[in-house]
């Protein structure tokens, strides 16, 4: 594994999943997503959103990154939460452990106050899971590549790339 990359293992994935499920229920949100700060989707639960989640993740990360720069300009280290309020749909975004972004999509069935409160609790729980994960990764980064991604993987990927990407 390349140093600095990160991987999500089965047990952490399910722990995260459970926290997101519980947040969605308790906040009466439509869906909840967890996105890596570089724009990669980690997990999405709830109503399947009627939009492209991959593009959404990339834009959400860019939104956060741009706002972090604005924060710095006004003398803040970060804006840890962002809210985008629409007439029907709204978004609540919160950065967790400095590396991932929690996104709650909600409508008028709930309130921003409730979403904020429940998201704060969920972010504490997520922080514990993520810190454990990062600790584990620190250790694993010292090792060689995980067994499931080896030379066979690279060879198969190369032939897939050759067949898909051509004029």
């Amino acid at each position, binding site marked *: 594994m390349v140093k600095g990359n990160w991987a999500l293992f089965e047990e952490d994935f399910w722990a995260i999943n459970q926290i997101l499920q519980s947040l969605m229920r308790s906040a009466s949100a439509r869906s909840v997503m967890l996105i890596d700060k570089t724009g990669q989707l980690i997990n999405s639960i709830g109503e399947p959103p009627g939009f492209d989640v991959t*593009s959404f993740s990339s834009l959400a990360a860019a939104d956060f990154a741009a706002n972090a720069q604005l924060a710095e300009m006004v003398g803040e280290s970060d804006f840890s939460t962002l809210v985008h309020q629409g007439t029907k749909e709204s978004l609540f975004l919160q950065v967790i452990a400095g590396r991932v972004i929690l996104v709650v999509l909600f409508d008028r069935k709930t309130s921003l106050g409730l979403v904020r409160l429940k998201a704060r609790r969920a972010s504490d729980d997520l922080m514990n899971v993520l810190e454990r994960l990062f600790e584990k990764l620190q250790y694993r980064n010292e090792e060689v590549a995980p067994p499931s991604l080896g030379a066979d993987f690279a060879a198969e990927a190369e032939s897939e790339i050759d067949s898909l990407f051509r004029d």
Partner: protein
Amino acid sequence: MSLINYSSREINCKIVYYGPGLCGKTTNLQHIYSRVPQETRGKMISLATEMDRTLFFDFLPLELGQIRGFRTRFHLYTVPGQVYYNASRKLILKGVDGIVFVADSQIDRFEANIESLMNMHDNLAEHGLSEEKIPLVMQYNKRDLPRIVSVTDLEKELNPQNHPYFEAVAFRGNGVFDTLKLSCKLVLKQLG
């Protein structure tokens, strides 16, 4: 920064197209978008000005399909080339797994290439990264135009580290897929 999800068995990697303004970064992505099968590509997002200059980034997700049980995706980004958008460029480099540097072959743009390359080094350094750690592929674009710098001179000035390079005419698609393919392979090699 590639993300490997062992539970949902997914791998996501990020490739950034870097280079001076109007060198053809967006054109590369547009050509890729127009040629890959529909099931392979996601929605292309362009945050551009009214004049079609990239303001923040272009984004194109590509899906390779299942490779040894892992759903493998590449997220392609371009940076805005104009000098005054450096804050945006820096943000987009965050978590990059592979870089394609698109150089404009025209004599008039020679200095702009060097400036952009230096800017890339500075921005990578701010993320604690360097050219040695990130697979880089050079693309010498606009080879069809008159008044262009020879590949030998471009190599000498822009590529002393001897990264692999391709000549290209991006708007016709020449060299676009060669560049992309090699960049994807180099990124995956780092994972394997």
